[in-house]
């Protein structure tokens, strides 16, 4: 074995360790598509949030639900369904681009690394979801957007060690935006649109240029 062979061997070892422990097929386009979904969602939600449109679907039922302190009043709002639609369209579109990339690179989509990414994003997100639910029950609507940004940011920082490291900086950005927005109650949707929309697009393009674009050209 000569020097270049040993160096090549060490390179192989490193590559395999990385491929098997970090989910590196996360595509920049996933970020862009999730960001676009978030912007569309925010645009649809805007008139309901700022009172130009009635956000309750069936007002006559809502009165009964409100008096009975029935939590299902949440499902009787347009905003809830807009949020659900935005989340799933963002998640699915993001998944598609990453799935395509992982197929191309021969990295398992449902492997150890991707499971760790999902678990580390998922735990803060689920906790955040429960927290949001209680916020809504108490009528603390002003803290909804900050809480979304903060819990999601914590999830990203947590997951960064199992995927592309740059995700960490997106996480910090979301957390900082979330914290700032706590002092700008009433502008939550705008902060939300910057954090989930614009930042996903900006980071997505950056990651795409860094990891995907040069591979396409090469």
């Amino acid at each position, binding site marked *: 074995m*000569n*020097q270049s062979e*040993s160096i090549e061997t060490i390179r192989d*070892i490193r590559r*395999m*360790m990385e*491929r*098997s422990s970090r989910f590196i097929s996360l595509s920049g386009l996933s970020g862009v598509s999730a960001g676009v979904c978030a912007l569309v969602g925010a645009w649809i939600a805007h008139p309901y949030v700022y009172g130009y449109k009635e956000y309750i679907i069936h007002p006559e039922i809502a009165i009964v639900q409100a008096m009975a302190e029935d939590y299902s009043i949440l499902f009787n709002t347009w905003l809830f369904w807009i949020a659900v639609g935005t989340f799933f369209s963002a998640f699915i579109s993001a998944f598609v681009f990453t799935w395509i990339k992982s197929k191309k690179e021969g990295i398992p989509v449902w*492997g*150890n690394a991707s499971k760790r990414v999902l678990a580390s994003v998922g735990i803060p997100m689920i906790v955040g979801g429960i927290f949001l639910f209680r916020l809504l029950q108490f009528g603390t609507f002003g803290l909804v957007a900050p809480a979304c940004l903060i819990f999601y940011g914590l999830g990203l920082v947590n997951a960064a060690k199992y995927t592309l490291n740059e995700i960490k900086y997106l996480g910090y950005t979301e957390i900082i935006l979330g914290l700032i927005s706590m002092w700008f109650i009433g502008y939550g949707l705008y902060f939300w649109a910057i954090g989930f929309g614009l930042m996903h697009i900006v980071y997505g393009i950056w990651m795409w240029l860094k990891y995907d674009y040069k591979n396409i050209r090469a």
Partner: protein
Amino acid sequence: MINPIEQLNKAFDNRIRLGIMSALMVNSEINFNELKELLQLTDGNLASHLKTLEDHQYIQVKKGFIGRKTNTRYSITKNGEKQFKQHLAALEKMIRSMQ
């Protein structure tokens, strides 16, 4: 001085076995299908290399089921980890001695 080439482990003198060991060094367990995708191999080819490593007792096998499908999981043994680290150290020495 001991010749570092003699310290290289013959069992790791193969890209596929080296790949399997590298992946198992950083994951507590990996199943057969995931290894197959990571290394982009056929079933038979991967199985034969896994068998070699298993015979050396560098890796251990756990067979289980997910529903009706078999789920065979592999993990590195204490000895396997030690041997792999020695192999890496030998590689390092080789590169240094050649500089």
